[in-house]
């Protein structure tokens, strides 16, 4: 899979620069900050590849922004894992990782029920408008503000928000997507929780809860802990994790669905 010819950033010059950067990453003498800068630049160089691959999945009911975000995660993983000694070009090596991340996103968060295209498009419009209005005002918009901005009725906005919920319930039926997918060095739950341990200890059923939290994927676990144990708002989490607020909402929804199944009898 070659990157698209139309991207101006993918030139011979880029290839030369890529080799230099890979050499810095593999170097024994480069400092940590030089390596970090090289890694960041390598990622930036390959953003057009993410955009190219994400475009292959357009018109499937997911917003281009969200696909680009998950594709970027795949790209960063690929850059971190890349071993030039194996002979493959970085773009060749990264492509299946980026595509895999996008496919995993569809698998984990795809539409669980048949949602009419009109509603899928409405949800995408609402998501984009939410980001735009949030940037302007510094807070997520209200239903009325979204309605005015999109020139639709408040009832239509509510329909769009509801359809976003239908979108995220598929994890109810899927086995835990985490555990084996912990690509960030197989961090244990204890590592992740750190200072939050004390808060979790206040919950009697923590022995039941911990393995369930551990079975979530890293991002869902981070979001659950940030929201419910660190008391952060969805908007704050969105900012930290680098996804939209509606995406945080969907991840919260799917993570809660998974946790709920394991804790049904626990509350009494």
């Amino acid at each position: 899979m070659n990157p698209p010819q139309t991207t101006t950033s993918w030139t011979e010059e880029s290839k030369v620069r890529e080799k230099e950067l890979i050499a810095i990453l593999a170097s024994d003498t480069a400092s940590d900050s030089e390596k970090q800068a090289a890694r960041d630049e390598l990622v930036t160089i390959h953003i057009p590849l993410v955009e190219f691959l994400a475009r292959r999945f357009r018109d499937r009911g997911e917003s281009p922004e969200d696909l680009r975000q998950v594709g970027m995660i795949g790209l960063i993983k690929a850059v971190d894992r890349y071993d030039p000694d194996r002979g493959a070009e970085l773009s060749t090596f990264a492509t299946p990782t980026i595509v895999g991340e996008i496919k995993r996103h569809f698998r984990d968060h795809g539409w669980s029920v048949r949602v009419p295209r009109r509603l899928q498009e409405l949800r995408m419009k609402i998501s984009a408008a939410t980001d735009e209005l949030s940037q302007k005002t510094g807070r997520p918009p209200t239903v009325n503000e979204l309605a005015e901005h999109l020139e639709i009725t408040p009832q239509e906005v509510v329909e769009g928000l509801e359809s976003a919920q239908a979108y995220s319930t598929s994890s109810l039926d899927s086995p835990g997507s985490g555990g084996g997918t912990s690509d960030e060095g197989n961090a244990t739950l204890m590592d992740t929780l750190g200072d939050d341990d004390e808060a979790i200890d206040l919950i009697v059923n923590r022995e039941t809860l911990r393995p369930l939290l551990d079975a979530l994927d890293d991002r869902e676990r981070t979001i659950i802990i940030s929201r419910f144990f660190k008391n952060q708002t969805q908007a704050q989490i969105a900012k930290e994790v680098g996804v939209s607020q509606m995406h945080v909402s969907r991840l919260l929804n799917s993570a809660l669905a998974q946790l709920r199944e394991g804790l049904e009898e626990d509350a009494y």
Partner: protein
Amino acid sequence: MARTSISLQIPADTSFVGLVRTATLGFASRLDFPIDQLDELSHAAHEMTTLLLADTGEGGLIDLQITELNTETVQVEASSQTNRGLVPRTNSFAWTIINALVDSVDATAIDGIVTITAVRSIQPYEPDSGAPNNVAPDGRTEAAL
């Protein structure tokens, strides 16, 4: 003036819980909740219903009443005749979740009927408290994600 309120009764079956979210979302959207807070109120209503569902027998019913207490505050009350007639433990995970999603939550058990009542008001945002921005997954900000 009477408070604006809606009532909903659903069978104690998970397939009906989505209606609770829809009703809560639709009702509370009439107030000026920012959509993340609106979403959380409907999350809370979902959790409250699920909590009751766990101890409501087959064929049972769950009643829901959603009330506009004032122009910025909504109350969600869920109740059912449960098997054990006990209020949920306040140190359970489910209760922790609900508690984090609303301003206050309380439960009573009278003659086997358990009622969970949650209240949420519109919260103001601190300046720069977190509108989503364009931070890349690796922390860079230049890439407009």
